[in-house]
């Protein structure tokens, strides 16, 4: 099934991708963000906070944004 995947880490990524039907948010995160902790990211499905065991649906919008993003001085 197709979902919109947005990753706001680094340069960012935003595109439609194909995933397995019935996959949960935590499984999706582990697949897309290996080696990272979910607690270090804001994970939103259709712009809403969700539980880790929420199953993704066709057409869902999943965004992953780091909790800590370093600003700088000019």
């Amino acid at each position: 099934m197709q979902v919109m995947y947005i990753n706001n880490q680094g340069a960012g990524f935003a595109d439609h991708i194909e995933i397995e039907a019935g996959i949960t948010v935590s499984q999706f995160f582990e697949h897309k963000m290996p080696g990272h902790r979910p607690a270090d990211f804001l994970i939103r499905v259709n712009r809403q906070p969700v539980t880790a065991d929420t199953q993704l649906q066709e057409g869902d919008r999943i965004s992953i944004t780091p909790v800590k993003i370093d600003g700088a001085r000019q």
Partner: protein
Amino acid sequence: MTEPRQRILLRAADRIHDELDWLAKLPDVRLPEAGWQECGRLLRQINKADLRGWDAASQRLRLRLEAALRSLESQVSGTACGLSPVVWQRDVLSQRQLYDELRALHDEFEDVEYDFKNKVLTVVTEPIVLEEIDLGSFEIRLEWDDLGEVSPYTIWAREPFRAGSNESVTHPHVQDEKLCEGDGHKAIAAALRQGRLFDFFTIVARILSTYNSGSAYVSLSDWIGEPCVDCGSNVSHDDLYRCDRCSESLCTECVVNCERCEDAFCGQCVARCSGCEELCCDRCLGKCPDCARRFCRECRYQDQKCEECHAASQTQAQRPEPALAGAPAADGLQTEGIEAAAGATKAGVAAEPVRMGQAAVSP
């Protein structure tokens, strides 16, 4: 959601969609020609000012050129970022999708405000506390008719808790209401380009909630305090001194104690005694009425004169007065003097009272 709120969201979504749709029709890549031309214009003005010897004008123009070049640098960087295929996308969100973006903002943030006249969408963050310093809430103001620009938004502290050493800094990464995006720069550019307003505001809010101690306009360790008026270093309120005369802030290294009264002063409010060369304040220094130099009370006599002038005046006082015609001897009887004084008085001329050894004052 209430009906009035729905109407506002629909109206905002419609306006922003029009702007994004217009931007999508523009050429893919636009070089910052206007910025380059501005720099060229300023440079020509500088050359003209230099030729004519207008130094002040040249200096002002150089500062403006510096700012223009930094802006151009940012525009070039933004254009280069837009060339990256990962972030480039010309699909414009539909009005329905933009409506969803705006509605989600109300769930995520403290407050969302719409200014249709000035075309500004404002999101209010929760209070930002970094290393136990409460900076308060911030407004992220997005000017939606500037979405094609490099930085179409500003950051305003609702109740500014400014850095003690730099009033233009309200957050370690915000100066003059501009956020230095750091690691979030590309993600912000991509989100704005694609109209992903929810992501844009979320990313900016995360930057505001993160303290990067290695690259801050003012570090949090220096946030609370005031700059020393003499050396400029930041001084915490616990270590702060104040000049007893001008009340300016001072650090422990720069504070000067008057040698006579021992009060604390800055370097501008003390001076060296011309006699003992100790540092003293204005109250403890006095001007010698003869030589006009300044001396402390230890180096002045009761007549306020310095030692040198006092000695000179003493010497002069001991010299005998030159004799006047008809005047009696200084230690003799003054019969003739009295008569002269009486005669002067009779003549209607005011006369000083006769003293020992003096003649009447001549008219």
